[in-house]
């Protein structure tokens, strides 16, 4: 499902295929699936955002409207990815929504300290999951206004 598009709207960072699929289904139900890039771990996410590694040549100025970030990732944790995004001038302004199974207070606190824009715990119930993902997609892609590039 790797789609390279000039107008990337969503960067989905999720190691589990099942979760990624459910997320995409939920977004699709709200017709928000266009221009979504799915990466499976932290380094790949950073490569994409900074146009490095496999993504060399990508236009760095063309950044997603929102990053949906799982915390529980192989190689580089979601917290670390968030830190890198929020401490780099080039990516600092990209809205990052943590979408995770963890409801741990420490995680929530740490993410907010690093400057996360939203923290969503994935509901177990599919209906609720669809509802939550749909709402956040609508909010960040359609309702939210970003500084003009």
């Amino acid at each position: 499902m790797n789609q390279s598009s000039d107008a990337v709207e969503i960067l989905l960072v999720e190691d589990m295929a099942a979760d990624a699929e459910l997320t995409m289904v939920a977004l699709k139900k709200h017709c928000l699936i266009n221009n979504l890039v799915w990466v499976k771990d932290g380094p790949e996410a950073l490569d994409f955002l900074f146009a490095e590694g496999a993504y060399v040549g990508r236009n760095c100025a063309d950044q997603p409207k929102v990053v949906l970030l799982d915390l529980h990732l192989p190689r580089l944790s979601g917290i670390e990815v968030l830190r890198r995004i929020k401490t780099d001038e080039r990516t600092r302004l990209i809205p990052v929504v943590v979408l995770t199974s963890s409801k741990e207070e420490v995680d929530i606190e740490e993410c907010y300290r690093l400057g996360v824009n939203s923290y969503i715990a994935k509901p177990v119930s599919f209906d609720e999951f669809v509802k939550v993902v749909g709402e956040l997609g609508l909010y960040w892609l359609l309702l939210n206004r970003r500084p003009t590039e």
Partner: protein
Amino acid sequence: MTFQALSRFLFGTLRGRLIVGVAAVHAVMMTLFIADLTDRQRAMLLDRQVEEATALSQSLATSAAGWIAADDISGLQELVEVQHRYPEMLFAILVDKQGRVLADTNKSRLGSYLLDLPGEAHQTVVSGTSALVDVATPAMIGGQHVGWARVGIGQKAASERLADITRNGVVYALAAILVGSVVAWLMGRGITRRLYAVQETIDAVRGGNRLARSDVAGTDEAAVMAREFNAMLDALAEREAELRSSEERYRSLIGKVQAAIVLHDGQGHILIGNPLAQALLGLSEDQLLGRVLIDAKWHFLREDGSILPVAEYPASKVLSTRQPLRGYVAGISRPDRDEVVWVLVNGEPEYDDGGAIARVIVSFVDITERRRAEEEIRELNQDLGRRVAERTVQLESANKELEAFAYSVSHDLRAPLRHIDGFLGLLEEKMAPTLDEESRHYMTTISDAARRMGTLIDDLLSFSRMGRSEMAKTQIDLGTLVHEVIRECEAETQGRVIDWRIAELPVVTGDRAMLRVVLVNLISNALKFTQPRPRAEIEIGCQPGREGETTVFVRDNGVGFDMKYIDKLFGVFQRLHGVDEFKGTGIGLANVRRVISRHGGRTWAEGKVAAGATFYFSLPPRSVKEAS
């Protein structure tokens, strides 16, 4: 030599002096008396002689006057001769007015002239000594001076009498001197014998007989002296006994006391070192007292093991600082021992009347064993500390593992559930047109099970969090918190008739979030189990508990419970009602108990089937403040 011996014999003793003195006084007094007596006698004799001579001369002049006028020489001679009947008569002379001797008892002077006649015609004593009284009397006839009668009287008999008197006086004086001396000797002997008796006692005492006492009795000075002397001896004996007894006590104390004591003089020299001090310091008495040199390997040590210079020895310190030395710890490196002997040293100065240090008492206590024990305890403590640290590390790592486990539970276990439910949902959507009622029921059951498991995981995590999260204690107004919780529950209670009875509640110290969990659980339980009641009655109140505790209760008129299951009430995932009857996982009261016990309080409940339940929790006194 002889004079000295004599002088010593006479004046060397009180007795001699007394005798010589009394004899001398006698001699002087008798001599004066006799001299005076003879002098008076002599004067008296002379007076009588003069009177006699005057009377004779007068009568001769009267008798001779006519004869002289008649110039009858022979009559005059007869008249003169007659005068010889006076034994003491020396001469009788008659002369005419010109001084020619007319008659004389010594005829050889006849016709010669007397030149020593008085100038005028008055009776005159020409010579008045005791050897010769010579009186010249004018012979007068009818107031006419015709010649002189001169009579000389000697004193032979009177002188003899006077010599007798003088001789007798001397004899009496000598007798008196003798008698006086004898009396003086007797008196002196009497007095001095008593004195000698006292002296004998003194000699005896000096000779060593401390019990000798003088037995001189009476009221005189010797007796008084003897008594005073005896009293002095008694007092001395008493003092000596006291001193001896004090000395014995002191020796026994120093010798037997179970402490090492060394006594120094004001210069720091050791006067006494008791046996324990000798044993502890490892020095003989001779070494201590400086009579024998101390081994060069013998040292006092500081606590760090360095050698203590002599100037810093305890006694020297007390002498230099003039302050007591207390609790000073020193080591003793003894050549006869491998190990250092550790001692606790105290030094006390003693001052003389002038404020100078007269003595320094230094005492030593052997603390070698104590130090060893302390060392062992210190090592044990270090060991214990190390083990505690190890255990703490183990515990922390176990805790970390637990947290990691909880974390993975929250994430890893939930993900599959989500996937089950998610894909079941997708499957249901896809199959919807072809699914029969039974299949749809199966799918719903699977979905419910997955969701329920999700809830269980969440509850388990929250329970675990209640146990391990840090407590942030603040002042909490329970009343405000209760109202806050009730407001939150309003969404669930819409349409229900609920009679809230909320009393005044105290301000307590505790973790706000945790106590909130307690109230949420108790209140939502009360709401849940009163659901079947048309009118729910929920009472929240406060009552004083035992030992100053504050007890808060939540009472409802709900379905209640059977007291025989009370043990299960606060257990994890323990439920007294079916899931279909009342929702819930059975974690709520377990959380309540955990939070309250972490606050140091207690939880309990009372209930009856179909007759409501009351849940209590208490907080210890220190966490409760007076509700204002």
